[in-house]
């Protein structure tokens, strides 16, 4: 089905529905609006006061601030241990001293010119710095630097030379074997390789505005990512885990021009995203005894790609009776990176390729529209229409497959995947009494896909919500939502080698029920409590193979208190449970099994903050959080007696405290303490050393179980 057909067939139908519904709202709303406006016209003139005589409003007593304001923080800290998982995103992964630097400064001139500098963790390799300058109300220029480090593991080991690069070879004297226990040179050749990467983003932007309704904005961002990631690399049923290289650059350019008036506005924007990868492929030597000359393997790295999008956004508040808002976007994703050869096995004849690159092209078309109307003071209506199309125009060809650089099989055609989805939802909010609001909504979603066993799914969602503040200090909300999804499954399209009973969960017919209740209560003027409970149950109908049931429940309580203007505290506790039932079969004509995965989370935290206490204590904070999770996986394989999987556990405890005291007029001393304890039990990784699995040469990543302490002492110089 081509694009026009799809649009005609699918997009227009809900769009027409939306338009009809909008027309209905207008048909009802506008007469009401006209009547109310007429009534308003009959009432006495507006009660708006006379505008003030601003010539008398001199603001002599206003403590206007010009020059520098803010503070600079500098000092040193100490990390007690190397701990990759703790340092993840924090930059505190290595034992030893580090420089601590932060800045929070603003300079203002009387004529509205300003310079704003804000930076955190500047002495670490996870840091951020933003500088903005301009003339308020006229223009601004901003420059930003953001650096994030991600540390996954520091206990991983590999025998490959060049680990983390695009060409990984085996050391001299390596002994090939069919399984890892025969690799007699493995242990002596294992070297540590940390799994980590870093993301650095430089951002530059300008904005022009002011009194004119025109607004102009341009923003360019260059993100560089380098480091490595774990990637499996296989030969038939043998695999090695590699530290694959990450050398990515993404350049993003956004520009827009907008026209902003009191009641309406329109913005046209153009977005470009260019992705470049320094590595086209990753080659590695087969550490196992290769068959058919398979000594070398090659993986394709993510190809360079581009995305261009033109977007029009706007809103119009005609009156309280009608507001329209929406966005229309048309984009194109392209990719024409040259293909690597089907195999690097010199013993095989490389099959010919139908083309040198994919010449891939995907067009995206997106429409999000919303109409809102306050039909009366107590009745409010909303209609939304959404359309999202991914039209994959990439050429379709047949490619001869060389399985894992080992042997040549038949041809396989690539399957350029296209879809479009539309949704229309309408809702009504009715204020029954001053203390009771009811909301009812209905939504229909339709999704059409290509090249799948399910080409169309239709989902209907109905929701009801009640909100009440019957008592002055208590707000209660309750919501029930029902979702039903149907499809046009054609099992024949599953293919001859796929279990005919398979129903993929994201296409499968299902019923989903969700109920949520929450309440906020002001126990005292300075003490607030909130509770919530939520249950959701998904029943995937007709599923003999695949995800058949999923269920989620969560409960929570949070408290917040302010003991004075300068002291506040908060606490929360949340319990969450996720359950899933999965049905499978060892082959396609029986031998079924039944598995469950149940995850249970318990999270709690408490914190106290104070400012400007007597005794020159300028600031203090203590924040404690605890997160525990247990995961249970069980499988019932035709009642075969089997031991149980060990429980998956994570425990994370973090305590962060800081204390700041004024030493003299402009100088404070800030002391900080951070302790983190993280432990995990994960049978997928625990005790799986590089040679543990006969047919998998792993990196031997183990789960963490360590505690780390960080202390810091800093001086804060205040500009005031």
């Amino acid at each position: 089905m081509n694009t026009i057909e799809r649009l005609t067939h699918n997009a227009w139908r809900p769009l027409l529905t939306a338009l009809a519904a909008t027309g209905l709202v207008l048909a009802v709303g506008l007469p009401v609006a006209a009547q109310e406006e007429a009534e308003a016209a009959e009432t006495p003139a507006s009660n708006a006061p006379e505008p003030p005589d601003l010539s008398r409003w001199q603001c002599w007593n206003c403590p206007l601030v010009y020059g520098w304001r803010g503070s600079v923080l500098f000092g040193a800290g100490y990390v007690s241990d190397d701990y990759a998982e703790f340092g993840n995103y924090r930059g505190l992964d290595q034992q030893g001293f580090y420089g601590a630097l932060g800045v929070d400064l603003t300079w203002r001139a009387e004529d509205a010119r300003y310079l704003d500098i804000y930076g955190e963790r500047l002495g670490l390799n996870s840091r951020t710095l933003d500088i903005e300058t301009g003339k308020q109300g006229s223009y601004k220029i901003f420059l930003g630097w953001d650096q994030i480090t991600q540390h996954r593991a520091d206990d991983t080991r590999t025998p490959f030379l060049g680990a983390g690069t695009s060409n990984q070879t085996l050391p001299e004297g390596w002994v090939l074997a069919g399984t890892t226990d025969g690799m007699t040179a493995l242990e002596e050749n294992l070297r540590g390789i940390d799994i980590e990467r870093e993301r650095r983003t430089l951002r530059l932007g300008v904005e022009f505005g002011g009194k004119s309704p025109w607004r102009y904005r341009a923003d360019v961002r260059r993100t560089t990512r380098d480091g490595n990631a774990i990637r499996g690399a296989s030969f038939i049923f043998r695999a090695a885990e590699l530290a694959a290289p990450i050398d990515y650059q993404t350049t993003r350019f956004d520009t827009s021009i907008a026209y902003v008036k009191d009641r309406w506005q329109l913005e046209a924007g153009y977005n470009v995203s260019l992705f470049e990868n320094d590595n086209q492929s990753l080659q590695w030597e087969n550490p196992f005894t290769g068959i058919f000359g398979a000594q070398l393997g090659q993986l394709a790295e993510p190809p360079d790609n581009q995305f261009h999008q033109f977007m029009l956004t706007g809103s119009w508040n005609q009156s309280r009776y009608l507001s329209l808002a929406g966005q229309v976007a048309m984009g194109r994703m392209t990719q024409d990176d040259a293909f690597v050869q089907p195999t690097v096995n010199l013993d095989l004849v490389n099959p010919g390729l139908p083309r040198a690159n994919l010449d891939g092209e995907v067009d995206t078309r997106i429409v999000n529209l919303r109409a809102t109307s306050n039909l009366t003071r107590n009745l409010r209506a909303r209609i939304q229409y959404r359309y999202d199309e991914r039209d994959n125009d990439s050429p379709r060809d047949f490619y001869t497959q060389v399985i894992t650089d080992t042997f040549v099989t038949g041809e396989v055609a690539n399957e350029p995947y296209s879809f479009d989805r539309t949704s229309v939802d309408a809702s009504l909010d009715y204020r029954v009494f001053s203390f009771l609001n009811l909301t009812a909504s209905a939504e229909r979603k339709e999704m059409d896909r290509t090249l799948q066993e399910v080409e169309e799914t239709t989902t209907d969602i109905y929701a009801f919500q009640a909100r009440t503040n019957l008592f002055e200090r208590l707000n209660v909300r309750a919501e029930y939502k029902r979702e039903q999804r149907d499809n046009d499954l054609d099992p024949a399209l599953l293919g001859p080698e796929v279990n005919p009973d398979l129903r993929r969960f994201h296409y499968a017919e299902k019923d989903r029920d969700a109920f949520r209740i929450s309440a906020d209560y002001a126990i005292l003027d300075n003490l607030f409590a909130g509770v919530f409970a939520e249950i959701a149950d998904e029943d995937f109908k007709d599923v003999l193979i695949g995800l058949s049931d999923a269920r989620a429940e969560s409960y929570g309580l949070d408290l917040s208190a302010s003991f004075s203007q300068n002291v506040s505290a908060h606490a929360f506790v949340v319990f969450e449970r996720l359950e899933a039932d999965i049905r499978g079969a060892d082959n396609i004509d029986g031998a079924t099994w039944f598995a469950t995965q149940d995850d249970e989370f318990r999270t709690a935290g408490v914190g106290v903050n104070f400012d400007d206490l007597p005794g020159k204590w300028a600031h203090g904070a203590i924040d404690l959080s605890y997160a525990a999770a247990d995961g249970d996986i069980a499988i019932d394989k035709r009642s075969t007696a089997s031991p149980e999987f060990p429980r998956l556990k994570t425990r994370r405890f973090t305590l962060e405290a800081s204390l700041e005291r004024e030493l003299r007029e402009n100088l404070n001393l800030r002391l900080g303490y951070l302790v983190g304890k993280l432990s995990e039990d994960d049978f997928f990784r625990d005790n799986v050393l590089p040679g543990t699995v006969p047919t998998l040469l792993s990196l031997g990543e183990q789960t963490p179980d360590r505690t780390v302490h960080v202390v810091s002492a800093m001086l804060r110089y205040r500009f005031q």
Partner: protein
Amino acid sequence: MQIRQRLTEYARGMGFAAAALAVLLTMQSGAAAQEEDQEEAPRWVTLGDDYMPEYSRRGADECMRCHGDEDSAHLNAVFEGPHGVMADERTPFGGNQCEACHGPGGDHTGRIGFGEARPPMPAFGPNSPWSEERENQVCQDCHKEQKHGFWEGGTHQRQDVGCADCHDSHVRRDPMTVASTQSETCVGCHTEQRAQLHQAYSHPIRQGEMACSDCHQPHGAPNEAMLSSPTINQNCYECHAEKRGPFLFEHAPVAEDCTNCHKPHGSNNPAMLTRRAPLLCQQCHSRVGHAGIGRSPNDLPSGNPSPFLLSGSCTSCHSQVHGSNHPSGSILNR
């Protein structure tokens, strides 16, 4: 799952909710008792949004007579921030000063009789009579940029969230504009997300490296979940452009919706996956060969350690789950 078990768990959930509600109502009854002897409501209460006194005679100078002392230092920080710039006519202090936001203060600053209560400012103050909707309108009268144009009809607006519930205009730097402090405000209401951010695998929000607004547009974007980009996948590709493709061999659920496999607010599974492989993959893959075989504890290191279960499981071989550009990569292993 057995119906009885479900009913039992529903009942437990409902019981929890009912118990919590009962506790709150009990506490409420105590508070309500204290409020029985209310005097007749003053006119600003009865007028509500229509309460519109005259402006004060001297503007902020009048305000500063009482609010210029040390006790009001936290209010006077407004002069360090963007709202206190007199040279910018768009800001409060380029116009009607304090009363630009708080409404006309003629009553509040005027003379009152002995024993009379001082009338409140119409907006953004203790006992202010203007509704949250009316207060929001005050902010929107100036903040008309595109992202605010979506406010009407957005989820936060419909749930009666006020601008001042999240933003602080009396500070030099609004915490909502800083990545490391923004999420504290958001999770104040979104308690489940707060818990998920603490799970073992999550985006670096609790470390202060990401803000909620890196993904969400809280002023009412008309797309799903008020995302910054028009669709979920476009949102993810903002930072993960290498997953965008198009690839020669695609993995349809990936191109369709990243949340088919990932939980963006946090998960107990590496890579924020919804489940562990191989079960994650076996939700959709059951065919001739090894894909459908149920993996049991016999595949642990204590038994016959299996690559189909341990370490990366399916991804130890099929590592290109986001798509492959290799001519021999139809099964996403090249």
